[in-house]
C-alpha cells in the first residue's frame, strides 16, 4: 500500500440514534390531543405536565411544529363548537350565565394549554409568524362563540335588554354584566366596540330621545333638569360598575345631546318656569343645576348668558325710562344697586362666579344706565343724600360697602364728566351748609374717585376741602386779632373759596346792610394783609345769616336766613313799610333772585316773617311789605329757605349740559393734538378711534364732534390733509 495519510482526529457529537418513527408525530400528537380533551373535560388532574411539555417540545424539535399547531387549532375549534351548541341551548336568563361559565373554563383551559405548549409558543410561532397560543385561544373563542350566528345577536340583545330594564328601574345582575363585558373587552377593543358599544350608544340615543320628548311635554323646566341630571349620574355609575371606562364620555355625550342640547332653547324659554322666571324668583339651586348641565353641551352657557343679558337689559331699560321711578333719584339709584346685588348673588351661588357672566352683567348695566342722560346727576344726588343723612349711624365698614357699590355704578357711566359737574355742585352745597354726615366718608369717596379716574378728576374737589380747613384757620386768626373789637356787634364767619376749585357762580350784586359792612371790610383788609396780590369777591348768593328778631307782640325768634334775606330784613329796622321797588333799589339784588327770596319770607306758612299787600302768591312789582306782627312759630329757631340740592329744573339742566359740551371741546382738541404729535401721520378712522379711547374714561366722544375739532385744527394750521391720500392727516410742528 502507499504512504498512509495522516488522519486528523475528529470528535463527533454523540447523536442519539433516533429512530424516525414515521408514526412518531402522530403518536405524540395523539397524546397531546387527548390531553386537550381532558383539560376541556375538567380532567386535567390526571395529566403529567412534565410529560406533556416534553412531548410538545419534541414535536417542535423534530420539525413537527406545523402539525402540532394545526392540530391545536382544529382540536380547540371542535371543542368550541360543542361549547357553542351548549350555550345556544341555554334558556332565558341562563344564557348569559352559561356563557360566563364557559368563558371562565375556556380561559383556565387556555392557560394550561399554553403552559404545555410553551416551547412552541416561544420558538416555532415567532419564527413562522403565527398567532401565539393565548391570542389564538381568544380569537377562536371570538370566532366560534361570540360571532356564531346563533349567539352574536342573542348576546347583544340580552345585554341591551338588561340595560333597558335597569334604566326602567329594575335591579339586574351587575356582576354578571361586568364579567361578560370584560370578556368582550379582553377579546379586543374592536369586539367591544362593534359587538356592544356602538349598538349600545345607538339604542341609548333612541331611548333618551323618546324619554326627553316625554318629559319635556309634561315637566316644567326645573323638574326636567332634575330628571336629566339624574339620568346623567345614572349612566356614569353604570359605566363605573360594568362598562369600559372609555365609554363614559361617549354615553354622557349621548345623554347630553338628547336630553339637553336638543331641548335647550325650549327649556330656557319655557313659560312660567324657564330661565327668566328662575332669575326673577332667585331660584339658586335650579339655576345652578341648569348651569352645570348646560356647560356640558356646545353653546349651552352662551345660550343662558344671552337670555340673561337680554332680560337684564330689558328690565334695566324699563327701570331707567319709567317716569314713575324718575321722580325720586335716590330711589332710582337704590333700585339699580338692588338689581346689581341680586345678579351678583345669582352669579356667585349658581353660576360659579363665571367671568363671562360677570362681564355680561357689566355690559348690560353699561348699556342701560347710559340710556338715561340723567343717570350721572341721579347718582350724584344719591351720594348727596347718603352723605347728608343716609349714612348717619352706619358703621365704617358698611359705609365703605355702600360707597364701593356707588363706585361700581359710576364705572358704568359713559359721561363721567357730567357726573363730575354735578358732584362738584352738590359737594359745594354740602360743605358750605355744613351738612355732611361724616367727613371721613366724604374723603373716602374722593380717594375712590381718584383711584378710578386719576388725580385730574379730584384735585379740584380736594381743593374745596382744603379751602374749608384754611378758612377755619383764617377765622381763628381773624378772631384772635380783632375779636376784642367786636364786642356786642354782629359776628362774621367767612369761608374763602378758591376760584376754579368751586363750581363757577356768576357774581351778583347785593348791597350788604350797614351793620355788616364795617365788619366785612375789616375782614377783607385782614385777609389781604396776609395774602397780598389776591382779590376777594363776596359771594352773596351762597351765604347764610342768623338774626335775632323781636316781633310786635314780644315774640323772640332766631331766624336762619340766606344773605339776601338778611339784607332785606335789616332794611325793616329803619322802616315799617317798604315797597318792592324800594327794596330792590336798596339791595340791588337781581329781580328773579329777589322775588324768590321775598316769596319765601312772605308767602310760606310758618315762615312768613313779612306780610305782603296784596296777599297774592306771587311777587308783583307794586307789592308792599310789612313786618308780620302776628308771626308765630312753635320753635324759637326758625329756618327760612334752606339751600338743598334738588333735581335741576329744565333750563338749569340745559345750561349744565351746555357747559359740559363746551368743556369737552378743548379736551377733544388736546387729545387730537397729543395723538397727532406722537404719530405724525394718521388716517381718519384710526384718529377717531384713538381719540375716543383716550377720552373714554371721562365721556363718550361723538365722532361728528371730533371731526369738527379736527377741521378746526386744520384751519388753525395744527394739522393738514395729505395731498395724495385724502384719508391721512399730518401733524404740523
Amino acid at each position, binding site marked *: 500500500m502507499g504512504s498512509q495519510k495522516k488522519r486528523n482526529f475528529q470528535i463527533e457529537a454523540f447523536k442519539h440514534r433516533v429512530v424516525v418513527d414515521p408514526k412518531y408525530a402522530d403518536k405524540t400528537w395523539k397524546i397531546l390531543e387527548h390531553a386537550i380533551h381532558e383539560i376541556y373535560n375538567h380532567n386535567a388532574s390526571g395529566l403529567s405536565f412534565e410529560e406533556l411539555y416534553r412531548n410538545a417540545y419534541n414535536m417542535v424539535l423534530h420539525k413537527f411544529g406545523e402539525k402540532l399547531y394545526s392540530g391545536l387549532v382544529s382540536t380547540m375549534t371542535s371543542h368550541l363548537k360543542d361549547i357553542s351548541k351548549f350555550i345556544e341551548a341555554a334558556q332565558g336568563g341562563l344564557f348569559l350565565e352559561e356563557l360566563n361559565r364557559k368563558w371562565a373554563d375556556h380561559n383556565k383551559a387556555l392557560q394550561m394549554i399554553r403552559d404545555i405548549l410553551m416551547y412552541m409558543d416561544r420558538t416555532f410561532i415567532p419564527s413562522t409568524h403565527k398567532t401565539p397560543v393565548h391570542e389564538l385561544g381568544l380569537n377562536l373563542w371570538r370566532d366560534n362563540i361570540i360571532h356564531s350566528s346563533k349567539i352574536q345577536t342573542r348576546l347583544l340583545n340580552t345585554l341591551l335588554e338588561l340595560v333597558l330594564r335597569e334604566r326602567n328601574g329594575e335591579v339586574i345582575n351587575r356582576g354578571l354584566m361586568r364579567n361578560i363585558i370584560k370578556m368582550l373587552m379582553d377579546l379586543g377593543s374592536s369586539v367591544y366596540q362593534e359587538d356592544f358599544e356602538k349598538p349600545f350608544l345607538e339604542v341609548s340615543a333612541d331611548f333618551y330621545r323618546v324619554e326627553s320628548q316625554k318629559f319635556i311635554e309634561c315637566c316644567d323646566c326645573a323638574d326636567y333638569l332634575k330628571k336629566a341630571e339624574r339620568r346623567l349620574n345614572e349612566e356614569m355609575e353604570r359605566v363605573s360598575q360594568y362598562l369600559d371606562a372609555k365609554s363614559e364620555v361617549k354615553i354622557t355625550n349621548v345623554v347630553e345631546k338628547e336630553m339637553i342640547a336638543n331641548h335647550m332653547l325650549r327649556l330656557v324659554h319655557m313659560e312660567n318656569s324657564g330661565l327668566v322666571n328662575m332669575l326673577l324668583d332667585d331660584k339658586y339651586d335650579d339655576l345652578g343645576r341648569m348651569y352645570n348641565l348646560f356647560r356640558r353641551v356646545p353653546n349651552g352657557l352662551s345660550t343662558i348668558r344671552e337670555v340673561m343679558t337680554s332680560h337684564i337689559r330689558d328690565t334695566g331699560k324699563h327701570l331707567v325710562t319709567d317716569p314713575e321711578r324718575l321722580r325720586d333719584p335716590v330711589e332710582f339709584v337704590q333700585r339699580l344697586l338692588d338689581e346689581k346685588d341680586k345678579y351678583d348673588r345669582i352669579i356667585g351661588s349658581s353660576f360659579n362666579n363665571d367671568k363671562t357672566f360677570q362681564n355680561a352683567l357689566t355690559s348690560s348695566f353699561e348699556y342701560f344706565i347710559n340710556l338715561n342722560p340723567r343717570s350721572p346727576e341721579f347718582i350724584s344726588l344719591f351720594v348727596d343724600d347718603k352723605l347728608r343723612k343716609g349714612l348717619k349711624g352706619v358703621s365704617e365698614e358698611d359705609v365703605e360697602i355702600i360707597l364701593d357699590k356707588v363706585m361700581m355704578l359710576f364705572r358704568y357711566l359713559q359721561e363721567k364728566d357730567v357726573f363730575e359737574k354735578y358732584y362738584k355742585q352738590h359737594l359745594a352745597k354740602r360743605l358750605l351748609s355744613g351738612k355732611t354726615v361724616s367727613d371721613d366718608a366724604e374723603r373716602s369717596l374722593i380717594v375712590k374717585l381718584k383711584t378710578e379716574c386719576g388725580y385730574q378728576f379730584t384735585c379740584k374737589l380736594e381743593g374745596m376741602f382744603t379751602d374749608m380747613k384754611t378758612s377755619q384757620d383764617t377765622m381763628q386768626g381773624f378772631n384772635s386779632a380783632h375779636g376784642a373789637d367786636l364786642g356786642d356787634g354782629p359776628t362774621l364767619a367767612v369761608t374763602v373759596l378758591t376760584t376754579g376749585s368751586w363750581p363757577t357762580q356768576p357774581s351778583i350784586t347785593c348791597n350788604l346792610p350797614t351793620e355788616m359792612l364795617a365788619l366785612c371790610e375789616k375782614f377783607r383788609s385782614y385777609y389781604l394783609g396776609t395774602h397780598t396780590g389776591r382779590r376777594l369777591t363776596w359771594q352773596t348768593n351762597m351765604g347764610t345769616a342768623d338774626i335775632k328778631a323781636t316781633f310786635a307782640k314780644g315774640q323772640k325768634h332766631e331766624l336762619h336766613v340766606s344773605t339776601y334775606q338778611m339784607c332785606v330784613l335789616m332794611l325793616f329796622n329803619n322802616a315799617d313799610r317798604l315797597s318792592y321797588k324800594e327794596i330792590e333799589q336798596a339791595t340791588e339784588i337781581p329781580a328773579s333772585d329777589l322775588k324768590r327770596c321775598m316769596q319765601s319770607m312772605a308767602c310760606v306758612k310758618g315762615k312768613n316773617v313779612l306780610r305782603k299787600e296784596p296777599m297774592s302768591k306771587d311777587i308783583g312789582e307794586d307789592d308792599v311789605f310789612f313786618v308780620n306782627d302776628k308771626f308765630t312759630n312753635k320753635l324759637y329757631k326758625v329756618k327760612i329757605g334752606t339751600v338743598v340740592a334738588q333735581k335741576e329744573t329744565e333750563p338749569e339742566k340745559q345750561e349744565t349740559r351746555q357747559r359740559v359740551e363746551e368743556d369737552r371741546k378743548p379736551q377733544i382738541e388736546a387729545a387730537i393734538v397729543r395723538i397727532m404729535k406722537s404719530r405724525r401721520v394718521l*388716517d381718519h378712522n384710526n384718529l377717531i378711534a384713538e381719540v375716543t379711547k383716550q377720552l373714554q374714561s371721562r365721556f363718550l366722544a361723538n365722532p361728528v364732534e371730533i*371731526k369738527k375739532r379736527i*377741521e378746526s385744527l386744520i*384751519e388753525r394750521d395744527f394739522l393738514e*390733509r395729505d395731498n395724495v391720500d385724502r384719508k391721512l392727516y399730518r401733524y404740523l410742528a
Partner: protein
Amino acid sequence: MRRSSTRKTGQSNSAASVNSSATDLFRSASSKATSKELERIDQLFYSYANRSSNLIDPEGIEVLCSDVEVDHTDVRILMLAWKMKAEKQGYFTLEEWRRGLKALRTDTVSKLKKALPELEKEVRRPSNFVDFYSYAFQYCLTEEKQKSIDIESICELLDLVLGSQFQAQVDSFVEYLKTQNDYKVINMDQWMGFFRFCNEISFPDLRNYDPELAWPLILDNFVEWRRAKHS
C-alpha cells in the same frame, strides 16, 4: 384808450435796481424774449398803472378788461391773475404783469386778447386746474390773517370757477349753503374738499359717497341734506 408813450426810464431803472435779482431772473429765464418785447410789456403796464402807486389798480383793470373785450367779472381775468401769480385781488404789480405777459408771449393788447382762449384751455387742463382752483380761493382773501370767505362770496366764486364744469353740483351746493345755518364762512379745507367731491363722487345719486372717509363735515351735511330732500 390811453396810451402813454413816455417811458419812465428812471422808474424802470429804479425798479431794476430795487429788484435787481428778480429782474435778472426775469431776464435770464426769458431767453427767448427779446428786449424789445420786454420794453413793450413794461410800456403796456404803465399805460394802465396808477401814477402814484405804480400798480394797476381796480380802475386800471376795468380799462384793461374793456380793451380786451372781457367783462371784469369774467373768469378769464381770474385766470390771467393766476398766470401772473397776482397776490392782491384787484391789483397787478409790475413784476406780476411781466410774469404773466411774458409767459403768454404777448406784448400788446390785441395779442393779449387773442391769447385768452389759449390761456383758458391751459388753465382747464386737469394738472393746472387744481392749482387754479386753490389760487382762486386765496386770491379772494383780502385781510392779513383772513382764512375764510363768507358764504355769499363763496357762492359766486364757485359758480365762476366751477360753473362750466360741474354746474349741477355747484347749483345744488350753492342752494344748500344759502339755506343752512351751521356755517357762515368757508375755509380752504372745505373749498378744496368740494372740488374733490365734484371729481370723485357720482352726481346726482351720490352713490359712492362714504361718510366714513375724511370728507369735511360740511360735505357730510350737504349729502345728508340732499338725500333728505330727494328721498
